[in-house]
């Protein structure tokens, strides 16, 4: 439904630019604050991408700094860092997408089938709570479990006669820890998305299935899952579109900046931040950042093109 049919009678197109501008002035003024913010904080920073091709010096600024062509990229891709951060970012996100899809759908179906709906609401509320905690807070929760000296886990291990684990310097454990906390924090949110689709499925399908003698399991496979399919596809593709952007908080806060863990916790976003703020290598940080922006752009656009074919309403453009 299009409630706003374009009123042709106003004939903006026939009038001159000035007249159109004047006629639209009040609305333009209304949009102005947002446009200014958008220009200053979204478009102006794009000029900073030039830094990827420059050797930045503070007094000369972005435009005055010396051009070095692709030197920054050469440095970036000569190190093993480029490969490590690319691999980590994509593999972790791929894993998160799969886990989230399977677990959220399973949880949504399970909650939807519970005999007491009141309980389902309570569970849903509890599952969603971690979503509202910041990663800083979550990192302190994790610390209370993993701390080498005082952590709950090491004390339990000691209690049962095992020796404690040096959690914050043992890279082997972190793929699991990171995945667990990512799921822990976001699963409730994803589940709610699927539940909202589930409640929209007409009961008629299930009644017809029951009359035909379908078991619950068959109903889930033949009715529920097919009905959830569009939502599953759209959310997954949109997530794939953002596969090159890692959740900075997860990878930065949870490992508490522990050096030995970098091989398994360094992702593009944390690499860029550390190059900028800790090692002060602006050129390299800018190169990695531009690398992310371009790959990210290609992926988001492709993902949207795919979504538009399947479910036009869910595409961004």
């Amino acid at each position, binding site marked *: 439904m299009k409630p*706003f049919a374009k009123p042709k009678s106003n004939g903006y197109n026939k009038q001159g630019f000035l007249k159109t501008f004047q006629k639209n002035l009040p609305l333009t003024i209304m*949009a102005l604050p*947002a446009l200014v913010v958008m220009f200053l904080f979204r478009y102006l920073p*794009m000029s900073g991408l030039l830094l990827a091709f420059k050797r930045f010096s503070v007094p000369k600024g972005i435009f005055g700094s010396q051009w070095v062509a692709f030197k920054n990229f050469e440095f970036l891709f000569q190190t093993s860092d480029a490969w490590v951060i690319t691999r980590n970012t994509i593999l972790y996100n791929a894993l998160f997408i799969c886990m989230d899809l399977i677990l959220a759908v399973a949880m949504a179906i399970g909650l939807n089938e519970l005999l007491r709906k009141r309980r389902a609401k309570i*569970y849903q509320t509890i*599952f969603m709570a*971690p979503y509202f905690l910041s990663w800083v807070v979550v990192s302190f929760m994790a610390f209370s479990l993993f701390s080498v000296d005082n952590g709950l886990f090491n004390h339990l291990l000691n209690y049962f006669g095992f020796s404690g684990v040096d959690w914050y310097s043992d890279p082997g454990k972190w793929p699991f820890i990171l995945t667990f906390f990512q799921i822990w924090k976001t699963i409730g949110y994803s589940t709610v998305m699927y539940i909202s689709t589930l409640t929209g499925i007409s009961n008629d399908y299930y009644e017809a299935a029951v009359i035909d003698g379908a078991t619950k399991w068959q109903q889930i496979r033949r009715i529920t899952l097919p009905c959830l399919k569009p939502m599953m596809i759209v959310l997954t593709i949109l997530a794939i579109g953002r596969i090159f952007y890692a959740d900075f908080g997860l990878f930065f806060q949870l490992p508490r900046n522990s050096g030995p863990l970098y091989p398994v916790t360094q992702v593009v976003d944390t690499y860029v931040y550390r190059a900028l703020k800790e090692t002060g290598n602006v050129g390299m940080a800018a190169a990695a950042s531009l690398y*992310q922006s371009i790959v990210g752009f290609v992926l988001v656009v492709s993902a949207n093109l795919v979504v538009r074919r399947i479910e036009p309403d*869910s595409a961004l453009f």
Partner: protein
Amino acid sequence: MEMLKTKMKQAKMIKDSYGEELSINRISKTTDVILNIIFLLWSLVCVLPLLLVVVVSFSSEQSIFQNGYSFFPSEWSLDAYQFFFKLGDQLIRSYGITIFVTVVGTLFSLAITAMFAYVLSRSDYAYNRLFTLLMLFTMLFNGGIVASYIVNTQMLGLGDSLGALIFPMSLNAFYVIVLRTFYKGIPLEIIEAARIDGAGEFKTFFSVILPLSKPGLATIGMFTTIAYWNDWFLGMLYIVDQKKYPVQTLLWSMQNSLEFMKQSSANALEYAEMAANAPTDSGRMALTVLVVLPILLAYPFFQKYFVKGLTVGGVKG
């Protein structure tokens, strides 16, 4: 016949006790119990880490030294909280900054988002397409943090200022789309009626459109409030003077020690005395509790709007 009667009686009893519509198509009691056990366990996984942090914050240092971070401390204590009350000028300052940024940021953000979304929803607005495209592009491509950091600190002079905590987060294209969809649902007749009554664009917006969009604004306002409250990243990136840290960034800076908290205390004498026996371990957890407390208290109230907001967000026009 008798059996049927008892069955129906049972059914009525279940219906009464559950307060739900009884349908034939239900999962078995056993399945229900199993599902409930799984969900209960996951609920514990969601809640227990937070509970551990709370318990540790009320444990005495001696108890932590003996038992580590434990759900059952050998000795309870309010030392950690008393420590903050005595040396609390930094905490109060940080709280003040967070509250200021959250309130001003949310109001500013809501104002520019609502006005922009309304203008974009008007199909009779001449630059509608242009501005929509400009906004959508920011969702696909961005300068990344290096470019933003350099532009904001070098060109806009926002380094170490509250503006750096407010403006970069103030325009979220996704919320503009959600609100625009909402405004598109308002019949054109209402706007035209206001115009015939002699109301200008601004009067129409503020006295007719804005009151109609209260539910949408409430949902987006809630998301924005939480985003501002939970933000530690902007504080970490832009704030140089630690005295200006918002609470989340303050908490992050405490990952390693309470040193800074002690140093920045106004009372040097008291510092010397307290530094020796500051409750470091429980202190961190106490600060974590103080940071999440407002979110936790508000959570039961906003979580139902949150679910509604998610379903609104799914629709795009």
